[in-house]
């Protein structure tokens, strides 16, 4: 996509490499190998959840790879105004101009827009919606803003975006709230001594009838409070479900993963497959995109989806173990180190 212009000769050289046996890539990887992925969560202390992810960064100076920063921020919204009951998620991808120096600002906007659409449509899908984004039913809810900044693109940007998004959402803590309401206590308005006991007979008429036909549920709660101002809150519900994407680059008849920039420009077609792995269910394909100018048959696509799932699962497991490790590093270990000091 972010095409570095390469010559025909280079292109055909790279393509020939994929098709040779064994396949050859410029950096010596096998077709289905990833470059090294580095991840750190909690990088933005003021965000509710954040992560920084890089693919293929140089081990010595940390430069040269694809680099993405993701952060989530929760905002309180009134349902009547512009929120929706039970909360909503809005994803935005911004590309740093430094990541794509060759693009004009209009082209950059288009690119950001494309990325935003793919990410937003996938993540705001109802099947993934967390249950704890509501504050007060029909009154107030959380708006989860997921902002992604592409700092550098050295190929395979979509996988990086989705992984970073997943990490940031995993890291997101929703402040615990308690709804505050005032209920009129029926029948017992404080008990004026004597004054009322005598007239209690006609009070029964006023009593509210509880009937199954009465479907009105009037919410009395008008406001909420934070239960614990020190605690960042509970994790976002269903954080296991957040999907990851796998980009299959398709130089027919084979496919390979994690393309570098020159590789991307040498391949006409790629398939973007987004899988979610709910803990005890079978995996779901959450989204699928074919990018590029080539063609793809349905039969081939079926195989690709199956293959893709295999790669995605590996990536998912690796990512999960890293996320858990990060959690421990940031809390338990930090505390222990503090205690040992």
């Amino acid at each position, binding site marked *: 996509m972010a095409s570095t212009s390469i010559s025909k000769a280079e292109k055909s050289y790279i393509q020939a490499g994929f098709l040779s046996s064994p396949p050859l890539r410029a950096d010596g990887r096998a077709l289905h190998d990833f470059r090294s992925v580095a991840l750190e969560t909690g990088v933005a202390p003021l965000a*509710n959840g954040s992560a920084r992810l890089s693919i293929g960064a140089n081990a010595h100076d940390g430069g040269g790879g694809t680099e993405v920063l993701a952060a989530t921020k929760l905002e309180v919204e009134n349902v009547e105004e512009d929120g929706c009951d039970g909360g909503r998620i809005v994803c935005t991808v911004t590309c740093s101009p430094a990541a794509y120096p060759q693009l004009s600002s209009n082209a950059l906007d288009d690119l950001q827009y494309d990325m935003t659409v793919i990410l937003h449509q996938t993540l705001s899908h109802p099947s993934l919606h967390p249950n704890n984004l509501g504050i007060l039913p029909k009154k107030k809810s959380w708006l989860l803003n997921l902002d992604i900044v592409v700092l550098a693109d050295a190929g395979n940007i979509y996988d990086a975006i989705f992984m970073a998004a997943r990490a940031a959402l995993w890291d997101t803590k929703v402040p615990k709230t308690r709804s*505050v309401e005032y209920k009129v206590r029926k029948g017992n308005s*404080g008990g004026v001594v004597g004054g009322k006991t005598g007239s209690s007979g006609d009070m029964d008429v006023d009593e509210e009838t509880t009937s199954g036909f009465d479907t009105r549920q009037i919410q009395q709660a008008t*406001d909420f409070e934070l239960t614990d101002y020190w605690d960042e809150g509970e994790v976002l519900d269903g954080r296991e479900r957040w999907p990851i994407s796998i980009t299959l680059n398709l130089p027919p008849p084979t496919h390979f993963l994690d393309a570098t920039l020159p590789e991307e420009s040498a391949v006409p077609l790629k398939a973007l497959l987004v899988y979610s792995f709910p803990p005890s269910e079978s995996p779901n394909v959450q989204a699928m995109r074919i990018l590029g100018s080539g063609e793809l048959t349905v039969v081939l696509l079926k195989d690709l989806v199956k293959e893709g799932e295999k790669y995605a699962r590996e990536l998912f497991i690796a990512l999960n173990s890293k996320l858990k490790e990060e959690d421990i590093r940031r*809390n338990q270990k930090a505390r222990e180190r503090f205690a040992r000091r």
Partner: protein
Amino acid sequence: MVEITIRKRPRTEAVVTQHKFLKKTARGKVIKVLRERYLRDDVACGIQGCPVCDMPAEDVLPVAGDKEHPMFPNGHFILPDTNVFLSQMDLIESSLFTPPIILLQTVIEEVRHRSLPLYNRLKALTKMDDKRVWVFYNEYRSETAIVREEDETPNDRNDRGIRSATSWYSAHITLAHPPVRGRVSEKVPTIVLLTEDAANREKAERSGISAISVRNYVNKMKNATQLLDLLSATGTNELEPTRASSGGRAALYSDYLSTSTLLAGIKSGILHQGHFNANQYNYLEGSVSVAAFDKSVLLVGRENMNRAVDGDVVVVEIFDEKEWRASTNEVVDQDATLKNDDAEASGDDGEELDTNSLVDEESKLVRNGAKTVGTERQPTGRIVGIIKRNWRAYVCHIDSTSLSTATSTSLALQTVFATPVSRLLPRIRLRTRQAPILLGQKILVTIDRWDAHSRYPEGHFVRALGKAETKEAEQESLLLEFDVPYRPFGKAILDCLPKEGDQWVVPLKQDVSKEWRDREDLRELIICSIDPPNCQDIDDALHARQLPNGNIEAGVHIADVSHFVLPDNPMDSEAASRGTTVYLVDKRIDMLPSLLGTNLCSLRPFVERLAFSAIWEMTPTAEIVNVRFTKSVIASKAAFTYAEAQTRKDDPNLNDPLTQSIRLLNTLALKLKEKRMAAGALNLASPEVKIHLDSSESSEPIDVEQKELHETNSLVEEFMLLANISVARKIQDTFPQTAVLRRHLPPPKANFEKLQDILQKRKGMTLDVSSSGTLAASLDKCVDPAEPAFNTLVRIMATRCMLSAEYFCSGSVGRETFGHYGLASPIYTHFTSPIRRYADVLAHRQLAASIGYTPLHATLHSKSHVERILDVVNRRHRMAQMAGRASVEFYVGLALKGRGEREKKDGQGHVRESAFVIRTFRNGLGVFVSKLGIEGLVMFKRDTQFDPDNYTITVPGAGGDVHIAVFDKIVVDIEVEKDKNTQRGKINMTLVEPVDSRAL
């Protein structure tokens, strides 16, 4: 080359270095706040000469700690937990409580979070000279800083922090006392964790920290008896598992809702917030004025008043409209009804027989009220929660009947009742060992809490003020009751005075002297001052002279206080917080140090003084041609009393310039007054009496008389009004956003309804309240030819229907509400008494800036600042008036007593005066004795025939039934009697004519 290292803090340590918390803003947003934390190793321990810490010179904790406590013979320091400050602040503040205190940062912050007033007291405590308090920043010392564990509540975390600081101190202190070879090792003082939380104590003891509860600690102290009294009631309960708490006792009141629930209810409009006002005639009734209703919300019965104390900000729930009722029209005296209630019994054993009967009696009283028909019903409700308590220290007497043993030597702990001097407050129950000693004294009591199962609030003794009815005790109790700051001025304040002291004089007129800069030399003018007798703080002087063009020049010269009181120095802030000078009958509490008030700023005769002058040119018909303001130097030629000026004016033989000047002023004043009255100004009245004191030494007043008014009173008043109005216009023009003005809002029509109704029914007179002018006119018509005092009475009652005037900042309210209703002036301010009112000082500064004399101080450009100051001044002003009135009342009481005794000697027995009926109750009459300026109650022992619609009661007399109605003239016997139990003085009135009420 210098090597620069960047000590960047790795993000991996974020959990230690960053302190994060969430905050909900007022607009309902949730924001995350992040604070960086830097830990260090050089936070000092504060112990004198500690070899480990690099101590600054100001270390405060003695090396050996405090050795006076028998439980800690090696010496000790106390380290109090947060709850100690939250509940036992009075104890810690007591000068008898002397152990050295280590105050942790965690504790300070927790106190701040829980209660701002207590936090301020705590801050003051750390600066007190007689306290040894060291603030230890434990959250910043690397050894004592802690990080919150997973699932740890904030409270637990703080407790852990406090414990870890305690153990660090214990370890640290052994380093400070290193064993020296060949010497007996020094005894190491103990660090004692003082906490009310049993769980925390237990945990502390498990980790080897000595911990103790406040009560146990104080019990063993030298002056335990005095100190134990200061313990707040909270200490005995709840947190102490050894004592059974309230247990199965039935709750008398419903529980309060949580603050957030209340706010939610208020937001949704179901609940209403307002100030609770107790009814001074009926202790079982109160009212809350809320924005949603025109009439205030009535609360009937203890349960519905739900433990509110006068002045609290409460939240009420309104009943259905069919349950609304009218106020009872009955006098219910707390002391009379509750006299049998036993302090111990209702405190410890719960409901007993006599308390049951008491409940019955109370509910009967409440029901009685329910029967009242006819009079208008008002919204009725109950209190469901309290937003803010307005508890302070109250002046009380101990109720002698509540004492179980009265032997003065007994030091047994007893529960007694303290009856507040103010009738608006409930009795307070307190536990004390000093009860027999405190009997007959005025004491200060603080309310600690009021539990749902306790009929009375619980409090503790703060200090004794002295024997009741002694001049000192009464004076101090008055000042405390009305929150008047009466401490002598501190050194920082006195340092702001001119260095020359009373030797200060206006320097010679030279170009170099800064006093003369831009000042007009008015020393040659014939200026004089007219004031009440014995006036020492003369803040105004006047002059008038004929101009060649036929016009008259009149000048008002006001003491130039703002020359001495500069903005934002200690003297200025003290004056701002005092707000006004308070005049009691026998004492004046100055707003400014007396050097200024009675000397340098006082426009005494024959000396040169700095002044701020307003000078008008007027036509002989008192039309203003122009006005100018200038700083000046004047030399008054005479200081008259009102009476002296009057005789001088009236003496046809005198024709000197001074007398002419007074005459000129007088003619102008008459015309000014005429114009003012034509514009609709009100001539109001308040019962003002004058107390003759025998001498300044004795507290025995000789007699009471009503103040006499001279024509010259009105002369001075007119010119002061004129000056105030002119200045108000000027500063409002120059500073439209922040001008300090004074207004009097027109009273709501509803306030007059009752008075109109009474006048109509009883006298057939009408009161037209559509504007101040029509009101003034109709008040003039309310004349009873047979009774000249009747008109004054109506004026007094009309005054009571009005709102009080207030200071305000011109930018904060709408232009159309600037008007002064009583004076019928579109704009008004206070300018003429800067010695005794702070608002005038502000007006002076603004006027000086508006004539370009000085630039305006930045604070006076800030609307919020001006508003804040004026809020204080308004409150102080109100309090000062009430204090002054209460002081007069006390002396009237004394005078009556004296007169009663004298007449008893003469065989008469009673002080007999004629009085007007101003209110009728089911079981009594409210009367006003105009000669003495006092109000009183005539109570009947049984109900009379009461007609609330016609304001009449019918009582059986010797020759058939007698009707008594509002405005009737009756004769009463007045007697000052002391309540036998509480020593609270009380004016008792009995009806003599038309019937003798002793039989009723």
